[in-house]
């Protein structure tokens, strides 16, 4: 594996972490929007409590991916910013609204009408942002960010049409459902009351089934719109083992939910979504932006890559224990509360 490959892999790993953690925060917003039944308010409380302490940290995975991308692969970053200006700007608006609305909602005054407006803004932004993020990812897979050259004409043809296709939208839908699925699975684990658990178990099972449908739809549409990725996903040597693994993880997640093995469900669902992401990454290797820009061609000089790798190693020494601590404090088994004079 070459140095550029290693860095591309790390960037993708950061995106993977963002999908599993930040994605679930978005998914939480979706369930906030769809909260109903007698425990509506308690569902919302659970979601907010689950997101509160960690969303900033979860969000930084995206930033890490972005800064590493422009450090290690500047031409790819420049091209993404140019051709996907519109969807990325919309993603940003979604991120801004979601993050700030969540905080205003949590920290504003409590229990009034205004509070609920922020809740709604948070939830709607949580719905739209994953759709657009998925669409952007779909556009990359479909080769829309390739060097289209003279084939693109006019504003619409250059800046809109490439990323607005049935395939990209189906990937958007897939991302939305995947995030909602993850969130529901995690919430079954975090809820401390039985009824709330059951609420989210039902939602998780539903989302898990919907995820199958969305994946099938995206695969079907990829025939016409993303041939490169599709061919690899079907014919490459790694394709069959990967599909088997993904399928096994998916079934394990659903079975674990069914039998109420919450911890196992969490692991299996995370594995399922990660495997799907890595399937995408492998299928477009060695291209960073198919169909023409390879990882090697987009890479910054070796010295930059080596330094970035060094910084990553150094950062990991600080970060991983800190992250572990954060999740242990807030996401571990529910320890008795320590009063602060302890």
């Amino acid at each position, binding site marked *: 594996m070459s140095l550029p490959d290693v860095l591309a892999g790390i960037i993708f790993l950061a995106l993977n972490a963002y999908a599993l953690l930040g994605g679930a925060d978005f998914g939480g917003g979706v369930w906030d929007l769809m909260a109903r039944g007698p425990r509506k308010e308690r569902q919302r409380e659970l979601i907010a409590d689950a997101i*509160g*302490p960690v969303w*900033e*940290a979860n*969000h*930084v995975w*995206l*930033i*890490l991916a*972005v*800064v*590493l991308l*422009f*450090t290690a692969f*500047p*031409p790819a*970053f*420049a*091209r*993404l*910013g*140019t051709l996907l*200006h519109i969807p*990325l*700007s919309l993603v*940003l*608006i979604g*991120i*801004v*609204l979601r*993050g*700030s609305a*969540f*905080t*205003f909602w*949590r*920290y*504003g005054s409590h229990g009034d009408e205004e509070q609920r407006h922020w809740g709604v803004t948070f939830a709607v932004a949580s719905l739209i942002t994953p759709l657009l993020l998925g669409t952007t990812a779909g556009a990359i897979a479909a080769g829309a960010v390739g060097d289209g050259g003279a084939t693109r004409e006019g504003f619409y043809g250059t800046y809109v049409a490439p990323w607005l296709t049935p395939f990209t939208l189906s990937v958007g839908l897939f991302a939305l459902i995947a995030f909602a699925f993850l969130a529901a699975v995690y919430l079954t684990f975090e809820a401390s009351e039985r009824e709330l658990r059951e609420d989210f178990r039902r939602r998780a099972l539903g989302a898990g089934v919907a995820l199958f449908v969305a994946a099938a739809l995206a695969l079907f549409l990829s025939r016409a719109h993303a041939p490169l990725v599709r061919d690899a996903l079907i014919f490459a040597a790694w394709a069959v083992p990967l599909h088997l693994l993904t399928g096994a993880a998916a079934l394990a997640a659903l079975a674990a939910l069914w039998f109420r093995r919450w911890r196992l469900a969490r692991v299996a669902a995370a594995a399922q979504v990660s495997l799907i992401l890595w399937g995408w990454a492998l299928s477009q290797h060695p291209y960073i932006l198919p169909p023409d820009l390879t990882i090697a061609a987009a890479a*910054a000089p070796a*010295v*930059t890559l080596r*330094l*970035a790798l060094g*910084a*990553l190693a*150094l*950062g990991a020494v*600080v*970060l991983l224990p*800190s992250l572990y*601590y*954060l999740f242990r*404090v*807030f996401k571990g088994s529910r*320890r008795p*509360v*320590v009063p*602060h*004079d*302890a």
Partner: protein
Amino acid sequence: MPDLLAARSQMGVSLAFHIVFAVIGIAMPLMMVVAERRWQVTGHAIYLDLAKRWAKGTAILFAVGAVSGTVLSFELGLLWPGFMQFAGAIIGMPFSLEGFAFFTEAIFLGIYLYGWDRISRRAHLWAGVAVAVSGAASGVFVVIANAWMNAPTGFDLVTGQAVNVDPIAAMGNAAALSQTLHMTLAAYAATGFAVAGIHASLLLKDPANAFHRRALGIALLVGGPAAVLQPISGDLSARHLAVHQPVKLAAAEALFRTRAGAPLSLGGWPDMAARQTRFAVEIPYGLSLLAFHDPRAEVLGLDAVSPDEWPNVPAVHLSFQVMVALGTYLAVVALWAGCLAWRRADLAHQRWLMRAIALATPLGFLAVEAGWMVTELGRQPWVIYGVLKTRDAVTPMPGLVVPFLTFTLLYCFLGVIVVWLLYRQIIRSPAVPEWRGFYMPGGGKRDAGGQA
């Protein structure tokens, strides 16, 4: 609106918005930690209350800082793909380090804000320290990236391409030290005075309120020394400019002609047609003295380069004057308060001092904005000084006025809401009757678990 202007305006608006929250994110954690530490040492619950109230405000501001910063990191590619393509490999390094600093900051902020009842007191204080340190570090790293745009090094330019890239040398660029020092001090000065100002205006109505008295003390402790040091560090910046970015200094001083023994112009308006600065108060030899510490030194004027390489002189000059005037004011007020405190006067009853501090509430932030206008506008028409023109860095996408207006509206909306939320918190705080006239006799172990 031309696309280039729209892109520049969008970048400017985004940065001007973000910098407010960034500055607060650097300095507020320090103040929270000081308050919490005092609580732990003295046992006075008032400090705990203070730390918690500040933390609550900081949580709101930090979230807005995080999302607006995210917008910025994308905007580098959305608006300036040419710049990023050229510069990414060279200055990606500080940005990556900044990424790690953000990570640490976000992790420990989560622990700090939500962990009051979950971890030990000592661990909680250390979480606060980690937030304060990583906040300052992230500011330093990003300013190093900006300093490189002003004083690019660490590569060779061969037919428009950067070769022999050396990211470490790029980080050690000539502007890095003066800019990071000046920016970090600015963060403490601006935030310290903003917080001090708010509490001072409340003390004007109620000088006995112990809550505001303690808050004022801590805010001045953080803001005061920084404000006194700021003119000295600004002088360092100006001397850097004189050597490395003479056009920016000439624009800041509205010095049209190169001359030895150049005077310092205070105020005045650059008349671009006549190429001279009107209505300025001139201090003979002042500029030569400031820039080179030698009254006879020659200072380059705008005539050293052709007019199409001039920045917008009136804007840069005005911004510079505003920053220096505000900086002088803050330093004087800080010294005044320092003298009184040294003589053990009761600051809260010094009505004129309280008025002066109250007036200073927004001034540090204005100085920060003005200073960045000097730096960024003064670098034009270059995005990388002497290497890449801004117009060659902009995205080819047309219609940029639409995103510019959209993001501007979004920021206006957010700004109004943040101000409103904070205002509600602040008007609520003096109504805390339990702290009125509460002078806290020493030693009393009044611990407060409540007030969550």
